[in-house]
């Protein structure tokens, strides 16, 4: 086990231990971290920018930043919190850049589902053979995605970290550099907005 001069609570985190091994030059430990976190990071960025290739590029950039930071790494938080702090900073800058350049195309906003769907699925859709339930599901996905995109950047970040990463308010505060009370307020507004956008669809489904 790699240890630091001052013992702290975060050393119990196995991923912190892996990162400390990376600090000592263990490339195998870095590979394990990539394997453990790649899907979570790609998912996080995909929900943020709705472009699979961009999401993979951003996730790769996060791992590169982790590697570059290895020599000055100090365990001051759980590894996932530290990792998503880097991801949050990158995501914020990226979104600002995208907003400035207005490069988010409608094609990208259609998401990667079109790329990932099998030929059978596409054929079924074209021939109108897709079951109604599947169409409903796709429609629901589009509505939910649009509702999520309707949130402002900080609300969306907080929702993604809470809903998909299962982070506590305190961890979200660490990642986004906010006080817990600010996270509470941010998430309550976000959920209020989601409710306002989605409840009609919810009622329609209930009918």
């Amino acid at each position, binding site marked *: 086990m790699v240890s630091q001069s001052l013992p702290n609570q975060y050393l119990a985190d196995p991923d912190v231990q892996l990162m400390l091994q990376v600090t000592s030059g263990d*490339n195998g430990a*870095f*590979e394990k971290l*990539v*394997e453990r976190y*790649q*899907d979570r990071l*790609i*998912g996080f960025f*995909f*929900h943020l920018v709705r472009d*699979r290739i961009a*999401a*993979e590029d951003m*996730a*790769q950039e996060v*791992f*590169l930043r982790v*590697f*570059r930071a290895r020599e000055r790494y100090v365990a001051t938080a759980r590894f996932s919190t530290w990792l998503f702090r880097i991801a949050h900073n990158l995501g914020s800058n990226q979104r600002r850049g995208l907003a400035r350049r207005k490069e988010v195309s409608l094609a990208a906003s259609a*998401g*990667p*589902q079109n790329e990932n769907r099998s030929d059978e699925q596409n054929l079924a859709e074209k021939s109108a053979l897709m079951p109604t339930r599947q169409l409903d*599901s796709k429609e*629901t*996905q589009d509505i*939910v*995605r649009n509702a*999520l995109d*309707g*949130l*402002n950047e900080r*609300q969306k970040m907080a*929702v993604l970290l*809470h*809903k*998909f990463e299962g982070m*506590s*308010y305190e961890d979200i505060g660490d990642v986004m550099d906010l006080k817990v009370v600010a996270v*509470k*307020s941010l*998430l*309550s*507004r*976000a*959920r*209020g*907005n*989601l*409710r*306002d956008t*989605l*409840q009609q*669809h*919810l009622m329609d489904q209930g009918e």
Partner: protein
Amino acid sequence: MANDTKESTDTESDGQLVDLVSYLDGELPDDEAESVERQLTSDSVLRSDADILSRTWAMLDSLDEVSGSRQFTQSTLQVVSQEAKSQPVTRQVRSFRLLKLLAKHHVLPLFLLGALCAATGLWVVQSANDRRSAKSEELAADQIVLQDFDMLQNLELYQRVPDADVLKGLKLKTEQGSAERSTVQDVTEKESQ
């Protein structure tokens, strides 16, 4: 931001929504959670609102989970490996960047100017020292001249003397002359008395 200012619903205040959401997320302390539970028990509108909040939140589960492509891990490790290999080069580039930065902020020209000034100062001090030592040598020579000034005044006369015997003879004659002069003087004095 439009979403921030958007009214949530007419059924609850902002504080109530914050408490309700925090309660649903399990982020309220026990005493506050109990308070919200009491309100939910007694307020059907609030209860309905909590239900809608929960169900709309659950709708986010319908979004697809995205995972990395098969090549992602390998390509990431390759990128990192290249990064590790290029680090010494990066350091050289950083040094060059530092030099450019210094030049950009006129640090390098100022440094060169300072070095030039220092060299000039050294040269001036060295020249002054040289001049001072030359002057000291001149003063020492003058001192010697002053010490032997009497001899130097008669140097031409001394140079006419062929050798030391002439000088000795001259000395004897001088002594005899002065003895005669003193005898004549004594005689003269006695006669006058």
